[in-house]
C-alpha cells in the first residue's frame, strides 16, 4: 500500500502543506476496495484464473480446440466456465461495491481543519499530514495526531480506545507543556513545529519522535498521540497535528490481511479432487493403451473404410492422442460446477444465519451476522470452544443485587408464605419514583430496604452514605438531574448507583469536597483523604468531615481484610454478616464488606501530619504510606456487606450444559484474576462442588509447574486405576493415556494461571498440559495475555486435529479469534474489534448453541449430502464413456449428445441438488437443540470422509455400469415397431441420457429428507426442462437454422415414442436405484443412528405441537466463598485529590490551585503507572496473587 519505499524517518511540519508534500506521505483517503469500473474485468479475471480449477478448465478448453484431440465441442466447456466466471464475478463485484460504500462513508466524515487562519469543515479524506485539526467531545479521531492542546487543564484529554485495543476504560493523554497553552486559533496558526519521528508501523503502544520548535527539542512518546479509531471523551475539544494519515495510521497498519480460513471439508475436497484427477489419468492411460492395441489389431485393418489421419504415424501415437481426448470427455468427473455450487450453498447458509430471528437480540437490535461465507459447515464439527469471560459469558454489567446491613439481609423477595421467590423479568421492582435523581436503569426487588432507609434507620443510612462517599467515581451532570458516573471499575459504578437510588446521591466532587444529595437535602462533606485501593490492601477508605463537623473514616474492602480490622464490639455482627457473605458467595455474587470509624479531631490531626511527612519522603514512600493507612484503618465498626452480581449473560448455563452434552469442550481463557474466573466458573456450572477435583496450577517456575501438572495427571489416572482395577491393563500409566482419555467418567477441572501457563506452553511441557487438559471436563485459564490465548488455541489446533472455535468480545480476543478455525465475536460493549476480526458475530453468548447445534449441524449435514450426491452424480454421468470405450475402438467417442454434456451439470441436475443443499433438514431445530448428541457425527467426521467418498463414487460407478450395459443388452438387437433398425448411436444416446436424468433424479429424491415446495419445483422442473430442451434441441426448426450443430434432429421423437425404450428406462432405473435402497433400508432398520431414531420420533409426534426445549436449570450447590472482588487497577484517588482531572470551572479556585502546584509531580507518576498497567496488564498483578 505504501509506495514510499523504505521511509526511514518521517518529517512533518505543522501548517506547511507545501513542505510536507515533498515527501508524498499518504493522505487521509482510505481505500479498501479492490476494483473500479475499468479495472474490474481484467483484474477480476486475472484473479479468477489463478484458481487451479479455473485454470484447469482453460487448459481443457485449449485441448478441445485441437481438432485431432477434440472429442467434444468447445462449447461443452466454455458454457459452464463462463457461467462460473460470471457468478463469481458478480459476487466479487457486490462485495467490492459494499467496500466502496463503506470507504466513501468514512472518507466523507467531517472534521475541523485549520486552513489559512481559520477552522474550516473538511472531509476526512482531504486531511493532510501536518494539518492541525480540532476534535470535539465524542468524536472519532480522524488520523494519528499529536496532541497539542485541549480544553482541559495541562493539556490533558481523555480517550476511549475500544476500537483499537478493546479497553473501555478511559485513558489519559497529555500534551507537551510547551504546546498546551496554544489553545486558540491564532496561536496555533503560528505554530510551526516540526516533528521527526518513526516511519509508519503497526505498534499501537509505542511511538518515538521529537518535536523541534523554537530551536528546542522535545521528545514525544505514545502518551501524546491520539490514534485514529479512538474516541475523545470528557474533553470539550482538543487540537492536534496530523502525523500519520489514511493507510499509514496505526489502525490501518494493524488491519492486516486476515488469514484465509479453510474448512476441513475444503481440504478434504481438494484431496479428493486430486484423487479424482489421478483416477482420471489412470482411466485415460487404460483407454489409451486400449486404443493402441485396438488400432494395431483392428484399426489397421479397418483402414479400408476408415483410413488413419495423415499425421497418425503409428498406433502408439494414436493412443497418445486418445489419452488427451479421453481426458477431455472424462473431465466431468472433476465437476466444474462443484466449487461454485459449494460457494453458493455456503453463501445461502450464511444468509440463513443472518436471517435467524432466534439469534437476533432485541435490546441491542443486533442480528447475527455471518461475516465470512466460507466456514459454515465447519460449524457442525466444532470440538473445542475457547471462550473469553468478561463480556462473553458475563454481561460486564455489575448490578447491586443484595446487601446485609446490620445483620439483616436485603434483596430476596418472599411471597406471602415466606417462600423465596425466583426473580424473573416479571418480578415487580422497587419504585424509586420518590427520588427524582434516580437511575432509571437500576433495578431492585426488595421493598423492605427502601422502607428501612425511609424510616431513618441509622445503619441503613450510614451504609448508603458510605457507598456514596467512599469511591473514586467522577460525576458528570450534563443537565440538571441528568447524572452520569464515570467509574473506573464497574463494581464501583454499581455501588454508587445503588446509593444514588436509595437517596444518597453523589452529585459533585472537588478535590476537597464531596457533595451529596441526602434524601433531598444537599450535604457537602470535606474530603480529607483518600486511602486508595491497591492490590495488597484490597480495600479503600476515605476520611471525610461531615456537615456536622465529625470526622469519619469509611472503608470498603474484601471481607477477610475488613474482618481483621474490626472493633471487638462488632464481633456478633461479624458472624452474622459472615454467614450472609457465604450465602452471597454461594450464589456467585461478588462481595464487599463495609465498615466505618469515628475519628477524633486530635487523632486525625496527628495522623495527617504523619501523612504529610510521609508523602514528601522519597525513599520507601509506598511502604510508609501503607503502614500509615494500616494504622488508621483499625478498630472499625462493621456496617454490612454488599453483593454485586457479575451478571452472567442470559442462558449461559444452559448453553454450556447443552454444548457439553454435544461433546464440545469449553475452555475459558480470561484476563481476569483466578478468584473471579473461578467464581464465574462456578456460577455457570463449569466448576461444581461435586467434581472429583479441581486442580489449580499456579506454579511460578518451570519445575513447579511441571510438578503440579504431573501430580494432577497422576492423580486422575491413578485414581481411576484404583476404582477400576479389574480391567486396567498392566503397563506404563502414561502409555495408556489415549485409552483412558476417552473413557473418563470422573469429572475433573483444571484452573491454570497465566504465568504458569507461560511455562506450560513451553515445548517440553505443552504435551503434558494438553493431555491433562483433555482429561479434565473444564479448563479455565486466567490472567492470560491475548498472545497466550492464541497460543493455547494454536496448541489444541496443532495437536488435537480438532476444529476449534474461539468466542470473545474484546480486542484482547482478536488474536485467538484469528487463530482458531472459527472466530466468533460477541458484539457487546467492548467496541468492534473482535467483531471485525471474527467470522460470525452476534449479541449473546447463548446464540452459540443455535449457531452450532442448528446452523452448524445443518450446514454440515447439507454439505456432506450435497458432496456425496455430487460425486455420485458425476461418476454415474461420466463413466458411461469409459464403458463405451470398449465398444467403439477406444476412440473417445461420446455416448451422449454434446449439448447434453454441456447442460447436464448446470441445467438438468443442478437445481434439485442445490435445493437439497439449501433446505434439507434431517431433524428440525427444536430437536437439534433438544438432543445435543446429534452433533457428534460432525465432530467425528462421519457424514463425509474418504470412506463415504469411496462409497458414493462406487455407487456412481455401478450406476454408470448398469446405465451402459442394460441398454447395451437391449440395443444389440433393437427394432422399431415399424421394422426400421433402432440400434443407432443417437437413439442409444437419448435413451441413456434420459435414463441417467431419471436415475439421478430418483436418487436425489431418496436422498432428500425435507421436501419443500422448492424441492418439488426444482425436481419436477428439472425433469420437465430436460424433456423440453431435449425436444427443442432435436426439433426441425433448430436443425433448419444450424444443421451441423444439432444433428440429433428427430431422435427424441422417434426414440421416446417407442414402448421398448421406456421399458429399458424403467428397468435400468429400478436396477440402478435398488442396491442403494436396500443398503440404506438395512442400515436404518438394523443399525439406526440417533438421527434416524429422532426422525422417527419426530414424525410420530408430528400431530403434537413440538414442546419447548426445557433443560432443567441446575441449582448451584456451591458453598464456595468468592471472598473478594474489586476493581482491577489502582484507583483514581491521587488524581482526584490532586484535582488534576477536574474542569477549571468546577474547581473551587485558589485553594485547590495551591495544592496542584504542590503535587504537580504526582500526575506524572500516575500517568507513568497507568501506562505500565495498560501495557502489561498480565504482569502488573502477579505480585498480589502470589501472596
Amino acid at each position: 500500500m505504501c509506495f514510499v519505499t523504505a521511509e526511514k524517518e518521517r518529517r512533518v511540519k505543522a501548517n506547511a502543506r507545501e513542505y510536507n508534500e515533498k515527501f508524498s506521505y499518504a493522505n487521509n483517503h482510505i481505500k479498501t476496495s479492490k476494483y473500479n469500473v475499468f479495472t474490474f474485468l481484467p483484474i477480476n479475471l486475472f484473479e479468477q484464473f489463478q484458481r487451479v480449477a479455473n485454470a484447469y478448465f482453460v487448459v481443457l478448453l485449449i485441448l478441445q480446440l485441437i481438432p485431432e484431440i477434440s472429442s467434444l465441442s468447445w462449447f461443452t466447456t466454455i458454457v459452464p466456465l463462463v457461467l462460473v466466471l460470471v457468478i463469481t464475478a458478480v459476487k466479487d463485484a457486490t462485495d467490492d461495491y459494499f467496500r466502496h460504500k463503506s470507504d466513501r462513508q468514512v472518507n466523507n466524515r467531517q472534521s475541523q481543519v485549520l486552513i489559512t487562519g481559520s477552522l474550516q469543515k473538511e472531509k476526512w479524506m482531504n486531511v493532510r499530514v501536518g494539518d492541525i485539526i480540532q476534535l470535539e467531545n465524542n468524536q472519532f479521531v480522524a488520523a494519528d495526531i499529536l496532541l497539542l492542546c485541549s480544553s482541559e487543564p495541562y493539556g490533558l484529554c481523555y480517550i476511549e480506545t475500544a476500537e483499537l485495543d478493546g479497553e473501555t476504560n478511559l485513558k489519559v493523554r497529555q500534551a507537551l507543556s510547551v504546546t498546551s497553552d496554544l489553545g486558540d486559533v491564532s496561536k496555533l496558526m503560528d505554530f510551526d513545529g516540526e516533528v521527526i519521528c518513526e516511519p509508519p508501523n503497526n505498534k499501537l503502544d509505542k511511538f518515538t519522535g521529537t518535536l523541534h520548535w523554537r530551536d528546542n527539542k522535545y521528545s514525544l512518546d505514545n502518551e501524546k498521540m491520539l490514534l485514529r479509531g479512538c474516541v475523545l471523551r470528557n474533553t470539550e475539544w482538543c487540537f492536534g497535528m496530523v502525523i500519520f494519515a489514511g493507510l499509514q495510521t496505526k489502525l490501518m497498519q494493524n488491519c492486516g490481511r486476515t488469514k484465509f480460513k479453510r474448512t476441513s471439508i475444503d481440504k478434504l475436497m481438494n484431496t479428493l479432487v486430486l484423487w479424482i484427477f489421478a483416477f482420471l489419468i489412470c482411466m485415460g492411460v487404460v483407454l489409451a493403451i486400449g486404443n493402441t492395441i485396438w488400432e494395431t489389431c483392428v484399426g489397421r485393418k479397418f483402414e479400408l473404410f476408415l483410413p488413419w489421419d495423415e499425421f497418425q504415424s503409428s498406433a502408439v501415437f494414436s493412443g497418445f492422442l486418445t489419452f488427451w481426448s479421453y481426458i477431455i470427455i472424462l473431465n466431468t468427473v472433476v465437476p466444474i460446477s462443484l466449487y461454485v455450487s459449494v460457494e453458493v450453498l455456503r453463501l445461502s447458509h450464511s444468509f440463513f444465519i443472518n436471517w435467524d430471528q432466534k439469534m437476533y437480540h432485541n435490546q441491542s437490535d443486533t442480528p447475527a451476522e455471518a461475516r465470512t461465507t466460507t466456514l459454515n459447515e465447519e460449524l457442525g464439527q466444532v470440538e473445542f470452544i475457547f471462550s473469553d469471560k468478561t463480556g462473553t459469558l458475563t454481561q460486564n454489567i455489575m448490578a447491586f443485587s443484595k446487601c446485609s446491613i446490620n445483620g439483616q439481609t436485603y434483596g430476596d423477595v418472599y411471597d406471602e408464605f415466606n417462600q423465596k421467590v425466583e426473580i424473573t423479568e416479571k418480578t415487580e421492582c422497587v419504585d424509586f419514583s420518590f427520588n427524582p435523581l434516580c437511575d432509571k436503569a437500576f433495578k431492585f426487588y426488595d421493598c423492605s430496604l427502601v422502607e428501612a432507609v425511609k424510616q431513618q434507620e441509622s445503619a441503613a443510612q450510614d451504609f448508603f452514605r458510605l457507598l456514596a462517599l467512599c469511591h473514586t467515581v467522577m460525576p458528570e451532570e450534563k443537565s440538571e438531574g441528568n447524572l452520569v458516573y464515570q467509574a473506573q471499575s464497574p463494581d464501583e459504578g454499581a455501588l454508587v448507583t445503588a446509593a444514588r437510588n436509595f437517596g444518597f446521591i453523589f452529585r459533585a466532587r472537588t478535590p476537597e469536597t464531596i457533595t451529596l444529595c441526602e434524601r433531598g437535602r444537599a450535604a457537602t462533606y470535606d474530603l480529607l483523604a483518600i486511602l486508595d485501593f491497591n492490590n495488597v490492601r484490597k480495600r479503600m477508605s476515605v476520611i471525610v468531615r461531615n456537615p456536622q463537623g465529625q470526622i469519619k473514616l469509611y472503608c470498603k474492602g474484601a471481607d477477610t481484610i475488613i474482618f481483621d480490622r474490626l472493633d471487638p464490639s462488632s464481633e456478633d455482627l461479624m458472624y452474622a454478616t459472615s454467614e450472609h457473605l457465604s450465602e452471597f458467595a454461594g450464589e456467585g455474587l461478588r462481595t464487599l464488606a463495609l465498615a466505618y470509624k469515628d475519628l477524633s479531631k486530635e487523632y486525625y490531626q496527628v495522623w495527617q501530619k504523619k501523612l504529610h511527612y510521609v508523602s514528601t519522603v522519597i525513599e520507601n514512600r509506598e511502604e510508609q504510606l501503607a503502614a500509615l493507612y494500616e494504622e488508621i484503618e483499625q478498630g472499625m465498626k462493621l456496617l454490612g456487606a454488599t453483593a454485586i452480581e457479575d451478571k452472567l449473560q442470559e442462558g449461559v448455563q444452559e448453553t454450556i450444559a447443552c454444548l457439553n452434552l454435544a461433546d464440545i469442550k469449553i475452555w475459558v481463557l480470561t484476563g481476569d484474576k483466578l478468584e473471579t474466573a473461578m467464581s464465574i466458573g462456578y456460577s455457570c456450572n463449569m466448576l461444581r462442588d461435586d467434581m472429583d477435583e479441581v486442580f489449580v496450577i499456579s506454579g511460578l517456575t518451570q519445575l513447579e509447574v511441571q510438578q503440579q501438572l504431573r501430580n494432577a495427571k497422576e492423580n486422575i489416572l491413578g485414581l481411576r486405576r484404583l476404582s477400576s482395577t479389574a480391567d486396567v491393563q498392566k503397563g506404563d500409566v502414561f502409555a495408556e493415556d489415549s485409552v483412558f482419555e476417552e473413557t473418563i467418567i470422573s469429572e475433573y477441572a483444571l484452573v491454570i494461571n497465566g504465568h504458569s501457563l507461560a511455562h506450560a506452553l513451553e515445548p517440553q511441557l505443552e504435551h503434558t498440559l494438553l493431555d491433562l487438559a483433555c482429561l479434565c471436563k473444564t479448563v479455565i485459564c486466567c490472567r492470560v495475555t491475548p498472545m497466550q490465548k492464541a497460543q493455547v488455541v494454536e496448541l489444541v489446533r496443532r495437536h488435537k486435529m480438532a476444529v476449534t472455535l474461539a468466542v470473545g468480545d474484546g480486542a484482547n480476543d482478536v488474536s485467538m479469534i484469528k487463530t482458531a478455525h472459527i472466530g466468533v465475536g460477541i458484539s457487546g460493549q467492548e467496541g468492534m474489534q473482535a467483531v471485525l476480526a471474527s467470522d460470525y458475530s452476534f449479541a449473546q453468548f447463548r446464540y452459540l448453541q443455535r449457531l452450532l447445534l442448528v446452523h452448524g449441524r445443518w450446514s454440515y449435514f447439507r454439505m456432506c449430502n450435497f458432496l456425496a450426491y455430487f460425486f455420485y452424480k458425476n461418476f454415474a454421468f461420466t463413466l458411461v464413456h469409459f464403458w463405451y470405450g470398449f465398444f467403439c475402438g477406444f476412440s473417445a467417442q461420446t455416448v451422449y449428445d454434446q449439448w447434453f454434456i454441456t447442460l447436464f451439470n448446470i441445467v438438468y441436475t443442478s437445481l434439485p441438488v442445490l435445493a437439497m443443499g439449501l433446505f434439507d433438514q434431517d431433524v428440525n431445530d427444536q430437536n437439534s437443540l433438544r438432543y445435543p448428541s446429534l452433533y457428534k457425527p460432525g465432530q467425528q467426521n462421519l457424514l463425509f470422509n474418504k470412506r463415504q467418498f469411496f462409497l458414493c463414487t462406487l455407487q456412481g460407478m455401478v450406476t454408470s455400469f448398469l446405465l451402459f450395459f442394460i441398454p447395451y443388452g437391449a440395443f444389440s438387437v433393437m427394432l422399431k415397431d415399424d421394422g426400421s433398425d433402432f440400434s443407432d448411436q443417437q437413439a442409444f444416446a437419448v435413451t441413456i441420457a434420459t435414463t441417467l436424468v431419471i436415475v439421478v433424479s430418483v436418487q436425489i429424491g431418496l436422498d432428500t429428507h425435507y421436501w419443500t415446495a422448492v424441492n418439488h419445483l426444482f425436481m419436477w422442473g428439472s425433469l420437465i426442462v430436460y424433456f423440453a430442451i431435449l425436444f427443442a434441441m432435436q426439433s426441425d426448426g433448430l436443425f433448419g437454422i444450424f444443421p451441423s450443430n444439432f444433428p440429433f434432429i428427430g431422435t427424441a421423437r422417434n426414440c421416446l415414442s417407442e414402448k421398448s425404450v421406456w421399458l429399458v428406462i424403467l428397468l435400468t432405473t429400478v436396477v440402478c436405484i435398488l442396491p442403494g435402497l436396500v443398503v440404506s433400508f438395512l442400515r436404518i432398520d438394523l443399525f439406526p443412528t440417533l438421527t434416524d431414531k429422532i426422525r422417527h420420533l419426530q414424525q410420530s409426534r408430528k400431530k403434537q405441537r413440538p414442546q419447548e426445549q426445557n433443560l432443567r436449570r441446575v441449582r448451584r450447590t456451591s458453598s464456595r466463598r468468592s471472598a473478594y472482588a474489586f476493581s482491577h487497577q489502582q484507583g483514581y484517588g491521587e488524581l482526584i485529590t490532586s484535582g488534576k482531572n477536574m474542569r477549571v470551572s468546577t474547581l473551587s479556585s485558589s485553594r485547590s490551585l495551591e495544592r496542584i502546584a504542590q503535587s504537580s509531580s504526582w500526575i506524572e507518576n500516575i500517568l507513568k503507572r497507568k501506562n505500565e498497567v495498560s501495557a502489561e496488564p498480565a504482569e502488573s498483578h502477579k505480585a498480589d496473587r502470589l501472596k
Partner: protein
Amino acid sequence: MMASSYNAKEEDGHHSGSSTHGGTGAAKNKKPDNTAFKQQRLPAWQPILTAGTVLPAFFVIGLLFIPIGIGLYVTSNNIKEYEIDYTGVEPNTPCYDCANSFTWNSTTSCVCTVNFTLVQPFESNVYMYYGLSNFYQNHRRYVKSRDDSQLNGVQSSLTNPSKECEPYRTNPETKLPIAPCGAIANSLFNDTLELYYNHPDGNMTKVNLVKKGIAWYTDKHVKFRNPGNEKDNFTERFKGTAKPVNWMKPVYELDPLDPENNGFINEDFIVWMRTAALPTFRKLYRIIQKKPDSAPTLPSGRYFLNVTYNYPVRSFDGRKRMILSTISWMGGKNPFLGIAYITVGSICFFLGVVLLIIHHKYDTRSNSADIPN
C-alpha cells in the same frame, strides 16, 4: 464505566468496518423478517425409509416386473427370425469366391447365390435386414466424418464440405468436392440382395422387396434434402461435385427411376448414414409386404438369396448377414428384456421376503426410550 459505555454508542456507534450492516436506515429495526423461508420453517414433507414403505415397494416391483418380463419373453419368442451369414469365409460357402476375388476396380460385379430353407412360414410383414459385424460405425473419427449441412442440401456446403470429411472431402485427382463427403458416406453398404422363393412345384418367384419406408420419417423429410432447385434434373443439382471414392456411381444415380428416392434422400443411403451404436449391428434393407390374401408372406420352403457381392469386409474380419424377421409391438426378437425383467422382478420379490424376515427378526428400532438426552 457502564454509564460511559452507554453513551459511547450514542454518537457514532459503529466503526467504518461495520457499515456492512447496511447502515443508512438508522431508525429501521434490524430484526430479520419472520417468514417461513428465512426462518427455515417451510412446510415440508419428510419421508422416512421404513419397513412400511420399502417392503411393499419391493413386492410391488416384483409383482409388476415378473408378468411384464413373461409377456416380453413370450412376445419375443413368437417373433420369427431367420439369419444367414453370407460373408464367404469358409472355403465351401457360396460367396467364398466372390469374397476372395474382390478388387475395388473390377467393373463386373460378382454374384453369388445362397439357398436356405424356412421351416416355418412367416406371417404378416417381413423385414429384411443386412447385418454387419466388427464394423466400427461408432468410431469417433468415422462418426464425425460427415457434413450434415451438405446432406441437408445447403448449397455452400455442397461445394465446400466441412473439414471433418477429410480425407474424403475432395477427390484427390479432380480436386472436386465430394458429395456426399466423409467416411460414412464413402463406406456405403452396396451389396444388392435379392430373394427368390422356390415353389414346391419348382417354380422360382422373385419376392417383392419394397425399398421405400425403411428410413425414419424425420430423416427422410427433414434431415436429408437434395440441393438445388426441385425442377432441375439431378445431374444439374449435383454439378461440380465428385462421387465418393468407393462408389461406383454418383449419388444422383442411386435410384434414377424414382426422384423421391434419389440423391441424398435415397433411403438406403439415409439408413446407412444413421451410424450404429455398436460394432455389430443390423440395418433395415427391404420390407416384404404382407399379401392381401391370407397366405403367409413368406411360406415355408426353399429360398435363394442372390447376392451381388460388392462390399468387402474380410480384410477386417467383418461378417455380413442377411436377416429376415417379423415384428411385434415391442420390436424385433430380443429375449434380453424379457429375461432381464423376469430376473429383476424375482430378485425384488426375493429381496422383499429376505428384508421382511430380517426386519422381523432383528428389528432394533425401538421407541424413544433409548434416545439419550
